[in-house]
């Protein structure tokens, strides 16, 4: 392996009629799609579980707690293998499901455990009186959540959710293990085929940086848009 740079490697043909550069960008697309899909699942399920853990019902709290502990204490890669190898052999219907969908759920459920923690903490950080006030004016419990607690709680948890969204991009790299053609998979295969590992890895690393940075900017924008005047960190 020579120590000179050879960036022309990206113009080489992969053998399939496209260049490594085109493959790199398609891989970036896969990374972003897996992450975005995972984030949607994680936000929906994580919020639901986080909310359940703050309800007065013991059974729902138990369900939320069990969910969180289950998905937090198994490594993501192992969870991915469960989705990919184990579940389809137990539930035969899952055999036809594309691996992209399985990865999205694996990543989403794994992250939902962390989001459930954040959402629970957000709701619990509100003064108890808010819940009581909602119930006292005759709102039902779901209404109290919808109109009183959640609008504040979600604004509070935007910063931790931002870092979870950045984590999900990093964590999407485990998808290489089930042959999703995302950035890490590209890095491994292109490195093997071209032996220009440093150039390939640098490009991939740069794209991971860029993606995380973009998420960070978007989140900052959302944070500014939804902030409540008069709160700490709110507009002046």
């Amino acid at each position: 392996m020579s120590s000179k740079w050879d960036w022309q490697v990206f113009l080489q043909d992969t053998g399939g009629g496209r260049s490594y550069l085109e493959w790199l960008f398609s891989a970036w697309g896969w990374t972003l799609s897996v992450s975005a899909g995972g984030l949607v699942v994680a936000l929906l399920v994580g919020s639901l579980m986080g909310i359940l853990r703050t309800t007065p019902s013991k059974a729902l709290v138990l369900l939320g707690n069990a969910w969180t502990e289950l998905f937090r204490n198994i490594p993501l890669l192992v969870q991915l293998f469960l989705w990919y190898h184990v579940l389809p052999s137990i539930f035969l219907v899952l055999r036809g499901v594309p691996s992209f969908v399985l990865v999205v759920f694996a990543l989403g459920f794994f992250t939902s455990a962390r989001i459930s923690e954040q959402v629970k903490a957000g709701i619990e950080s509100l003064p108890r009186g808010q819940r009581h006030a909602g119930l006292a004016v005759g709102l039902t419990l779901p209404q109290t959540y919808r109109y009183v607690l959640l609008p504040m709680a979600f604004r509070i948890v935007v910063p931790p959710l931002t870092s979870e969204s950045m984590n999900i991009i990093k964590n999407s790299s485990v998808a290489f293990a089930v042959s999703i053609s995302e950035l890490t998979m590209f890095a491994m295969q292109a490195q093997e085929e071209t032996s220009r590992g440093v150039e390939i890895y640098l490009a991939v690393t740069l794209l991971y940086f860029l993606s995380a940075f973009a998420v960070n900017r978007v989140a900052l924008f959302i944070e500014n848009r939804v902030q409540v005047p008069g709160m700490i960190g709110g507009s002046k």
Partner: protein
Amino acid sequence: MFNVDFGFLSWQVVGSFILKGLVFSVQLTLVAMIGGIAIGTMLALMRLSGRKPLVLVAAFYVNTLRSIPLVMVILWFFLLIPMLIGRPLGAELSAIITFTVFEAAYYSEIMRAGIQSVPRGQVHAGYAVGMTYGQTMQLIVLPQAFRNMLPVLLTQTIILFQDTSLVYAIGAYDLLKGFEVAGKNFNRPVEMYLLAAVLYFVICFSLSMLVRRLQNKIRIIR
């Protein structure tokens, strides 16, 4: 349809495939924890030193590693170390170096928060009785920082233990690999992946329960 059969399991299987992986995973976790906390503490002290070059170097180290996926870091080291030393390095050794360097970035953020949680008066008190910077840190600040941050450091170590499964990327023989190889040998991959999940869960869940108890204990004394 339920087609799961654990009949092939025996102590011999456990001994010959899984134990070897478990030993490596634990070894990797412990080495990376000790090395990572040592390097991480140094990085934290650099960042809090107020000397610009030191602050910049430490911040660059921590922020770079924290924004790259661990799998990519594992691949980078596996590629670069042989280039630098001029001969191939085993996947296991490469993993140990990678995890120590990588985890240092995360432990350093924890230690930084820990050091900052110690009241400034403690440092002044140290200087006032004539201690040097090194003595103040070693005898006054760091012991309190460690103690305050112990639950967080241990939680990070549980995450580290889970992350060791990512050495899959370079084919090192860890706990997950042990289950996988056993699954292939007996043509029972489904059962082995299930068992792997159960074992990881039992280990991580019990450890996190212990950390929670420790947290309560520390809180009362403080």
